[in-house]
């Protein structure tokens, strides 16, 4: 027997039962205290913490079920077990309804009692571990990556912390990479729903029909391939928070579905007729200008107002450049740990490069640049040329400062840079360039660009 002792309260009006049960449990290494009646048991429940409460059903005065009800109120984490010599289905059902862990008929088989105690101890150990892990996770997530000393971000933190305590829908607005999901996770961790799940879904990543099934789930046979009923993200987030990222990209049909579920907190699974009710707090995010989208008719005005209950605007990194040294030190600390590589900081030149860069990809881009720097650096200090950002103040590449170039050369260079930025993702690059994918493919072929290494001729 190792670890802390399990504290057991035995409540029985028969002394011989208290003695023999107490003795049996003490030999298992448990700490046992007995009470001869319900009233003294309630006093003991008020005074000390118990892991297990073994309660005789029939006692003069307060009976076992009354003590059970008190025990559930005073110490809901303690496993209460009803013991009786006169078992009836009614009392057993009543005991279980009141929250009893088990119901035993006296005398018990030694194996039954032994297994029950083992089950209680194992379950309580899991619950304790779960609490510790959740706490650790919460500490880990609580505004961890939202490192800032800028006044604008301090206002965001204050608003987010207040909003976290409410149940209102939050709309996080900010550029790509500015930390919208990180903020949403921190709000969840700070909210009364922290014990529930945090479920994130990117609305831009999936076509309409798939997103519908992803959000609302589907019934078996709802469409080809629906071989079993599947829960959607709304159901998975029950009791917690649902983070709808890139909500500005949702199709008009799904905008209507979202509006309904936000208003009624219930929905049908795809192909289903049963109404599913959920208790979910929604945090939506977008990098789009939703007011403009409402004005041009691509986003429903009623949905916008449903989402825009508490708007939180995350400033871009270039609007809070004073945070860059702080973020660099914070991100390097984490990168060092993740990469098992000692990185003590960046050189003065490297810091100047970082501070003057425009950061279109915000904190995410900063992290990636630092990761590259940490990989490339030969010593423990990252140098300016380890970062791959070009010279200080020059942006990504000094194209504009070079000798005058033709329009075609500028276009070739720009497409190459955007492809590099998207990691070779043509769809994303086409969106950023404001042209369709076919046009972009034609230009890549024309300029013999390679998707993974811009400005190098492609191998054909």
């Amino acid at each position, binding site marked *: 027997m190792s670890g802390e002792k399990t504290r057991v309260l035995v409540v029985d009006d028969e002394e011989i039962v208290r003695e023999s049960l107490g*003795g049996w449990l003490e030999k298992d290494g448990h700490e046992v205290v007995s009470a001869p009646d319900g009233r003294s048991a309630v006093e003991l429940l008020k005074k000390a913490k118990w892991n297990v409460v073994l309660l005789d059903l029939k006692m003069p005065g307060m009976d076992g079920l009354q003590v059970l009800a008190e025990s559930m109120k005073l110490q809901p984490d303690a496993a209460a077990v009803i013991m009786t010599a006169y078992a009836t289905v009614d009392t057993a059902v009543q005991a279980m309804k009141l929250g009893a862990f088990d119901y035993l008929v006296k005398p*018990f088989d*030694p194996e039954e009692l032994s297994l029950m105690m083992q089950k209680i101890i194992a379950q309580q150990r899991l619950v304790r571990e779960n609490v510790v892990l959740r706490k650790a996770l919460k500490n880990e997530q609580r505004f961890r990556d939202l490192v800032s000393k800028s006044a604008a971000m301090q206002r965001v933190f204050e608003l987010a912390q207040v909003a976290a305590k409410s149940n209102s829908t939050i709309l996080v607005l900010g550029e790509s990479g500015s930390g919208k999901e990180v903020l949403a996770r921190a709000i969840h961790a700070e909210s009364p729903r922290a014990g529930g799940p945090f479920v994130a879904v990117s609305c831009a990543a999936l076509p309409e029909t798939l997103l519908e099934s992803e959000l609302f789930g589907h019934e078996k046979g709802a469409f080809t391939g629906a071989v079993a009923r599947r829960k959607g993200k709304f159901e998975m987030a029950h009791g917690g928070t649902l983070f709808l990222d890139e909500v500005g990209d949702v199709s008009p049909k799904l905008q209507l579905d979202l509006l309904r579920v936000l208003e009624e907190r219930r929905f049908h699974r795809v192909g289903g007729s049963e109404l599913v009710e959920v208790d979910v707090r929604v945090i939506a995010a977008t990098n789009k200008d939703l007011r403009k989208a409402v004005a041009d008719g691509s986003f429903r005005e009623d949905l916008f107002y449903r989402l825009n209950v508490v708007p939180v605007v995350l400033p871009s990194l270039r609007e809070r450049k004073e945070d860059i040294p702080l973020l660099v030190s914070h991100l390097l600390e984490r990168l060092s740990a993740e990469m098992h590589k000692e990185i003590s900081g960046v050189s003065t030149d490297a810091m100047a490069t970082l501070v003057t860069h425009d950061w279109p990809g915000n904190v995410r881009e900063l992290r990636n640049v630092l990761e590259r720097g940490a990989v490339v650096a030969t010593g423990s200090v990252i140098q300016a040329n380890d970062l791959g950002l070009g010279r200080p103040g020059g942006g990504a590449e000094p194209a504009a400062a070079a000798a005058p170039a033709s329009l075609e050369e500028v276009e070739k260079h720009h497409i190459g840079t955007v492809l590099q930025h998207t990691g070779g993702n043509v769809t994303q690059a086409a969106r950023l360039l404001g042209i369709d994918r076919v046009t972009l493919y034609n230009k890549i072929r024309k300029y013999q660009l390679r998707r993974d290494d811009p400005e190098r001729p492609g191998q054909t």
Partner: protein
Amino acid sequence: MEGIQLWWIGERPADPRLLEHVRSHLVRAFDLPVALGDGPGRPTTAFDTRRRQWSSTGILRWLLERAPDGAKVLGLTDVDLFIPILTFVFGEAQLGGVAAVVSTARLGDPPEMGDGRVIWERTAKEAVHELGHAFGLVHCGTPSCAMGRSSNVRDVDQKRGDLCGTCRAGLDERSRRST
């Protein structure tokens, strides 16, 4: 008088081979002299007419009244034992006390397994177990240790007849403190 008194207090006549087998295990486990003998009578007052079983707690009380000063006493019996909350027990002991009792009544299950040697071995293990309680040891989490909890004969068969290192150290510590 120091050491252990091993008394037969069963209904049927004592089996000397069983008593000798148990005695040798106790000597090995506790490193103390073990005196064999027939009990000073039988604990008839411990019989419960309603349950038609023998109260192990009643037997402990009976043994305690008759135990010689300074000795631990283990009563061996063949009657079916119970404590009020359990359907049966293999044995019982006063934790850190003087008396312990073990019964062979349920150690012969299933009957085809219950030949003499199997019962002797199981009885010896339970005798070490209950006396271990009398020496202040609680149940041990090591399944092979004699101080492991046994709710059925399978549990008994899984155990060895002696104490694990941790329980032995606990026993030595207690004996150092009491001297």
